[in-house]
């Protein structure tokens, strides 16, 4: 049995992958595309929080919200000026994929130029550890887990109890019928992209004190959350959550046992899932 600290780390990673995967699935279910620059919104969120705390002295919980709003707005701009203009019938998939991949380079270059390539630490935000006898957990990691639960609850309420959520669910199921009932699918896409990017940014900012902040921090969470939504099923929100948990634990608990083979195991698992059950664990079969 791996030590409890490893389990806690796995859980923290699961939370991050879950939050990011949730945003990606949301975007995928409405826009029908994968946002490959999702990890870069995670990175930008971390930078916003870093500068909000160190330069402006804003308290951590408030700067979390600020980073969500700022980066969510940026995501909306990307949707408006890049994704929407490239989503032409027939080529949309191809063009949006290449364009969002180019945005990866763009955002990383911009962050590197503006903020420098050095690792930046934010260790003083939530100092202290919770002593639990045989092991201890830092308050920051507890904050990550609580924050993720709050986010998930909030997303549940937004999607199931509000008018916007109803519009999002309708547009995901039947875009044509939804637009016949007066839902502007364009506006829903914009909102969803904003929510997805804000989720990624907040995941990045809550993680900023745990890990260090640098322009390339978004790449691994991006790949991991992509694999999480593939395992869980493209377009399934439950799948994103379960996939995130599986990946987080695989990356820590299984890695503790078999070192780098866990990465191979991870990719083999993804390939097997896609070959045996392409719709993922929770996805609906393709029409």
């Amino acid at each position: 049995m791996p030590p409890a600290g490893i389990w806690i780390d796995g859980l923290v990673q699961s939370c991050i992958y879950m939050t990011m995967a949730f945003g990606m699935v949301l975007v995928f279910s409405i826009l029908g595309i994968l946002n490959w620059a999702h990890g870069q919104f995670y990175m930008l969120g971390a930078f916003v929080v870093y500068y909000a705390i160190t330069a402006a002295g804003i308290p951590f919980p408030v700067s979390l919200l600020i980073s969500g709003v700022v980066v969510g707005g940026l995501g909306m701009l990307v949707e408006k000026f890049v994704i929407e203009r490239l989503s032409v019938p027939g080529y949309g998939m191809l063009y949006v994929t290449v364009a969002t991949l180019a945005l990866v380079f763009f955002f990383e270059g911009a962050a590197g130029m503006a903020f420098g390539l050095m690792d930046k630490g934010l260790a003083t935000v939530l100092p202290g550890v919770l002593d639990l006898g045989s092991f201890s957990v830092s308050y920051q990691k507890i904050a990550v887990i609580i924050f993720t639960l709050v986010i998930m609850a909030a997303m549940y309420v937004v999607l199931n109890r509000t008018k916007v959520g109803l519009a999002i669910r309708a547009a995901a199921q039947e875009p044509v019928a939804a637009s016949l009932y007066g839902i502007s699918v364009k506006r829903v896409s914009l909102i969803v992209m904003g929510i997805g990017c804000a989720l990624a940014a907040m995941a990045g900012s809550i993680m900023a004190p745990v890990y260090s902040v640098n322009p390339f921090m978004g790449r691994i969470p991006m790949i991991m959350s992509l694999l999480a939504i593939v395992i869980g099923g493209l377009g399934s929100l439950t799948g994103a959550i379960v996939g995130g948990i599986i990946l987080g634990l695989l990356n820590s608990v299984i890695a503790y046992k078999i070192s780098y083979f866990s990465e191979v195991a991870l990719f083999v698992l993804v390939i097997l899932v896609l070959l045996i059950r392409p719709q993922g664990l929770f996805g609906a079969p393709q029409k």
Partner: protein
Amino acid sequence: MMLGRYYIDYKSVLPKVVAGALVVLFAVFPVITTNMVTLSILISSGIWAIAVMGFTLVLRTGQFSMGQAAFMAIGGYVSAILTVKLGIPYWPSFLAAGVVSGLIALVIGVIMLSAGGIYFSIITIAFGEIVRIVALNWEAVTRGAAGILTRPPAPITIGNFEINFATSVVPYYYFMFLLVIMAGLVFRQIDRTRIGGTFRGVAANPMLSEHLGVHLMKYRVIAFTVAGVFTGLAGAYYVTFLSVITPLMFDLWKSIQIMMMSIVGGISSIVGGALIGATVLYTLGTYLSRLPIYNIQYLLFGAAVVLVLLFLPKGTGLVDLWGKFWHKVFREPEEYEMPEESEMAVE
């Protein structure tokens, strides 16, 4: 899905005279300049162009492979291991690299192409990452992160004329030239003949093609295998040119680079688009990385790709600018059906 809406007939916009003139120009290029930097950029661009042609061929069947650099890694490692560890001469190991890479592409294709579309893209990402992790950790064979130093091919003596790869880049240039021409002829032939048409049919409407008696998997696997062979050869040659191979040389971001070169260059012409896309983006990347401001090259590279995608008519790439230019200059304007302005507008 990938059928060009604005189809340009490349037989009419690239007459044999122009094509021949281009070939002659590049054939005498080392006579004009022996500047090593220029030649190195051209050699690397040509090698990437071969990989890009492979990507475009797979794209013709409607599949979006995001692990093409893994085949370059396989080809590179096969040739490096055969020459350095087993002492086999370079040219047999070069061919062996193509064969091994093609066989792996065949096996992978048979297993994995059954999941089409975005699932195939993600599977190829996973495949590429597995190749990278194995190369990084199987130290007994690949020497891990340190990589393998390769030796230049042995000098070839014809009469009293010696082709020495160790002293100059010109032999590398000419061999790259031959390789690109060979690959170009093969891909062009595949693309123009019946089999290329079948590829497009498989991409445009899989169900209809299947009802017409086309075995979808067969054609997808053929495209993937041909791409694998040539990408493996390109990888084997690239490794020898750079004289080193490490696992990081062919990671996911190189596969993405191949993809960008293909789309930016234009997929309507399999050879021309690949050559233009690879040359433009590789040269851009090389010169941008000399700018004094650190990291600005990523920003400008990303911005350039996005701008090309945004401002060229949809479904075209840089290569289609040539067709437009040719028709503007040498043809009556009404013979060439450019899309209407309203059609070109977005949405």
